[in-house]
C-alpha cells in the first residue's frame, strides 16, 4: 500500500504545472475550436490578464491603471533589450475574460502599442465542438 501511495505522489508531482502560476483563476477565457497553441515559443512574452471588471494584471502582479502599466512595460522592454530582443518581437499575450468589455481590452492593447509593442496574441480556451 505504501508503494502505491508513493507512486501516486510521484504522479501528482509530475503533473504539477508551474507555468499555471501566472494564470489567474479570475479570468474565464472565451473558447474557440480553431485557436491552436503556438508552434514555436516567442523569444520574449508579456502576459496580461484582465478580469470581467476590467482589472488587469501583468503576469501575477495587479496593475492599478494604464499609466502604471506603461512604467512596467518600459521595464519589461528594457529587460528584453538586455536579452537582445527588439520590442517589435515581444509577444504580448492578452488573457481577457469573456465578459470583459472589448473597449477595456482595446485600451490595454493601445497602451501596449504606445510603448512600441505590436505583436499580440489573444488567448482563448481551446475547445473541441
Amino acid at each position, binding site marked *: 500500500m505504501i508503494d502505491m501511495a508513493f507512486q501516486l505522489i510521484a504522479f501528482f508531482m509530475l503533473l504539477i504545472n508551474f507555468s499555471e502560476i501566472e494564470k489567474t483563476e479570475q479570468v474565464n477565457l472565451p473558447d474557440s*475550436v480553431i485557436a491552436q497553441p503556438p508552434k514555436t515559443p516567442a523569444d520574449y512574452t508579456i502576459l496580461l490578464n484582465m478580469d470581467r471588471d476590467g482589472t488587469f494584471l501583468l503576469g501575477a502582479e495587479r496593475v492599478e491603471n494604464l499609466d502604471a502599466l506603461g512604467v512596467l512595460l518600459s521595464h519589461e522592454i528594457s529587460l528584453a533589450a538586455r536579452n537582445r530582443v527588439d520590442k517589435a518581437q515581444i509577444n504580448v*499575450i492578452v488573457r481577457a*475574460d*469573456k465578459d470583459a468589455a472589448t473597449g477595456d*481590452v482595446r485600451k490595454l492593447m493601445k497602451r501596449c*502599442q504606445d510603448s512600441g509593442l505590436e505583436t499580440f496574441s489573444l*488567448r482563448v480556451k481551446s475547445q473541441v465542438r
Partner: protein
Amino acid sequence: MKIRRSDREAQEIKLDMTAMIDVVFQLLIFFVMTFKTPVYEGDFGIKMPRASATPQEMLETTPNPLMIRLRATDNGELQSLNIVFQADNLTYNYDPANATGIFTSLNEYVIGIVGGQRSPMGGDIEAELEIDSTLRYDFTVRTIEAISGYKEADQIFTLIEKINFKDTSD
C-alpha cells in the same frame, strides 16, 4: 563459534513506519486536493501597427480591407454585424436564440471571398474590426474566430491572418 541473538535484539530492529506513512498520506491528500485538470489554451495572433502609424500609412498597407462593424446593445450583447467589402454591404442582426448563426454567416462569407473567385488578392485580405467599446469580449473573439478559419474533419483551414482593430476614439 556460533553467535546466538537473543529474542530481545530481534525485536529492537523493527522499524516504526507510522510517522512516514502519515506524512505520505498528508502529501497525497495535498496533491489530490490541488490537482487541476489541464485546460488547453490557444492564441489568435494579431499584428497591430505602432501607435505612430497614421491612418494614411495603414491604408497604404491595406488597399482593400474587409471591414467588419460590431454594434452592441446597452448591456454589452451583440446587436448587429455589418460587413463591408468591395461592393458588398451586408448587415446581420444577432438572434440570441441562434447564437452561432451570425458567426456562421460571417464565416461562410469569408470563405466565399478568400477561397472563391471574387478576390484576386486571395489570402492577402486584411480584416479590420470596428467594435463598440461596450461589447462583450466573447463576441469579439467569436468574430475573430469566424474570419480566421474553420475546422472541417479535424483539420483547421486558415482564412484571414491579418486582423486589425480600427482605432476608434471612445
